[in-house]
């Protein structure tokens, strides 16, 4: 599957430092259409920094970012959204008191007349999106998110991300707070996203989940990429070893001069 994938996002040699702390050192990373790429690493390995760089929250100090093969500069979350990059954060960023439709369209409401919300149109396309992702566990899209289970909320957060013709979806710890059955649902959903032709990046500490859903695994350690595996050609021991003791190419923790 990897061989068929077209790289949608390619990072080459990106670095980022915060003062004297080198968070990322010349990291290469790519995400291909139709492929689930896992991003793993211990705490402080630079996963979040990498994601925030892609999301436009941070700017990389150096390195090249290619989107669809074209060099791009992502300076703000809006730039990222315009390219079709959507991020589902760990804490989901849903408003509990609003219903499913309102959450899926938050910040991008469809208007009827100049001021009036077009609820029918929003409900219609929310239903379509949920249907296309085979999310059938939600009783009604007019339920408040407060009434949903963790897995359902995750599904809504993912559906919200893919509704906008997105090309690349990044999921930050999507299964962290979920039970077994709900984890199953979310992993199935992640797989379906890739099967629809999206590029999917999943960050997780749970290697079991990763081996279940990912096609390739990028391992970060101390801000450097120590390995890139094809899931089919590796095993959990090998990945764990890379996470904890992978070979570093650069001297860690020092800003390069």
């Amino acid at each position, binding site marked *: 599957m990897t061989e068929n994938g077209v790289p949608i996002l390619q990072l080459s040699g990106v670095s980022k430092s915060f003062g004297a702390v080198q968070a990322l050192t010349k990291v290469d990373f790519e995400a291909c259409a139709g492929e689930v790429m896992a991003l793993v690493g211990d705490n402080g390995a630079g996963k979040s920094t990498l994601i925030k760089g892609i999301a436009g929250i941070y700017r990389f100090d150096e390195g090249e970012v290619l989107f669809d093969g074209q060099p791009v500069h992502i300076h703000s*979350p*809006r730039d990222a*959204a315009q390219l079709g990059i959507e991020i589902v*954060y760990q*804490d*989901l*960023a*849903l*408003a*509990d*008191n*609003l219903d499913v439709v*309102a*959450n899926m369209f*938050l*910040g*991008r*409401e469809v*208007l009827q007349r100049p*001021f*009036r*919300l077009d*609820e*029918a*149109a929003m*409900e*219609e396309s929310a*239903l*379509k999106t*949920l*249907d296309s992702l085979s*999310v*059938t566990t*939600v*009783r*009604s*899209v*007019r339920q*408040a998110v*407060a*009434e949903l*289970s963790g897995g359902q909320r995750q599904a809504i957060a993912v559906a919200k991300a893919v509704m906008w013709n997105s090309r690349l979806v990044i999921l930050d710890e999507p299964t962290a707070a979920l039970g077994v059955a709900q984890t199953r649902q979310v992993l199935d959903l992640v797989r379906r996203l890739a099967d629809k032709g999206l590029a999917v990046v999943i960050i997780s500490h749970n290697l079991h989940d990763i081996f279940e859903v990912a096609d390739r695994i990028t391992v970060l350690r101390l801000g450097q990429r120590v390995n890139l595996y094809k899931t089919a050609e590796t095993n959990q021991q090998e990945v764990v070893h890379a996470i904890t003791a992978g070979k570093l190419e650069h001297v860690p923790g020092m800003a390069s001069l």
Partner: protein
Amino acid sequence: MSETELPTPVERSMMQQAQSQSLADYARAYGRRLRSGDLGAIPIILGLVVITVIFQNLNENFLTPRNMVNLIVQMAGITVIAIGVVFVLLLGEIDLSIGYVSAVAAVLVALLLRGPTGISGVGRLMERLGITEPFNWWMAVGMALLLVALIGMVQGLIITRFQLPSFVVTLAGLLVWNGVVLILIGAGGTVIIQDQVIVNIANYFLPKELVVNDATLPVNTSWLVGLTIVVIFAAGRVSRWASRRKRGVSTTPVVIIVLEIFLVTLVTTVIIYICNLDRGVPLVGIIMLILLTFFSFLATRTRFGRYVYAIGGNMEAARRAGINVTRMRVTVFMLSSLMAGMGGIVLASRLRSVDTAAGGGDLLLISIAAPVIGGTSLFGGRGRVISALLGALVIAGVNNGMGLLGLSAGVKFVVTGLVLLAAVLVDAISRRGRAQSGLA
């Protein structure tokens, strides 16, 4: 509707489910909300029934047409101020300045109407600016509302810019605007309002006969207004239902819509009938209704309202969704001051004057208590504009009833306080209900 007969609802897709909301589905969803602790307007309606029964038993004048008309006029000012408070509470903020901001607007209107006389600072300022005539009513109202909106903007900017709790900034505002009211009124102590339009706001009743070219027609205008209200309500409901049905998204069962229209017609008819037994329908009641309708629309059907709820529910989510949270918060504080200003003008109109006590007493507290009693949460994100009306009705009802009984102000405060406590307890218990059913 017949689709509900399908045996395996679980396997139907969302699209199919959406089209098939029957009465049974509707009732089930409602039951679920109740069990999870979302009681809606039920406690407040029960409360109103209890209040009515108690006071009617203690004093048979409570339910008389005369007293009901008084009640509408008494609650109007508080309701208008409380509408602004609803939006502030929805954000999870508070505005303690509204009492005296309402007085600032009232004093400004009164002084601008009095014109360039040397008695007050405003009058001297008008003289110095070369204004020779008193302002007419709409210029005075416009100027006053503009200035109080500016007050709200300044308070909102300070709160957002320096990331201060709204509690503290508006507490400072409370003191400042109290002082400003005293300074503006000056030594005179009381400013009389003589402008007929402003006085009419709270003292005019819809005529029971229509006078056209000196001919008196037996047309009771209040029924025309009532008919308009019912028609607008019904048209809104039906057109919404029809457009949703056309799109194939879930619709409210027809029975419920018919029931709603019937209830609105009934309530409108009863109120107009009772009012006509006395002086007639007060104009201020209509003004109140128009404001409630407009701001309900703003809260539930526009992007602005959606963002207010979103910020109150999860400010971080709102920010990530690209909502300009700062601008929204400042706008809501402006709205709060603006509504306080309008309410202040209504209150001044009722008294036909403004004095140094304007905006003081329990005005601030009951204006904030009203939406809370009406079911708006103090913790943000939950509540409706109509809660301003329901809460104001409870408070005005209790005050009015105890006034009839000749009870002292002390007893009034104690009872109003207990009602507020009961309302907050209902909110807290229903929250716990939501938490227990895993829905908080």
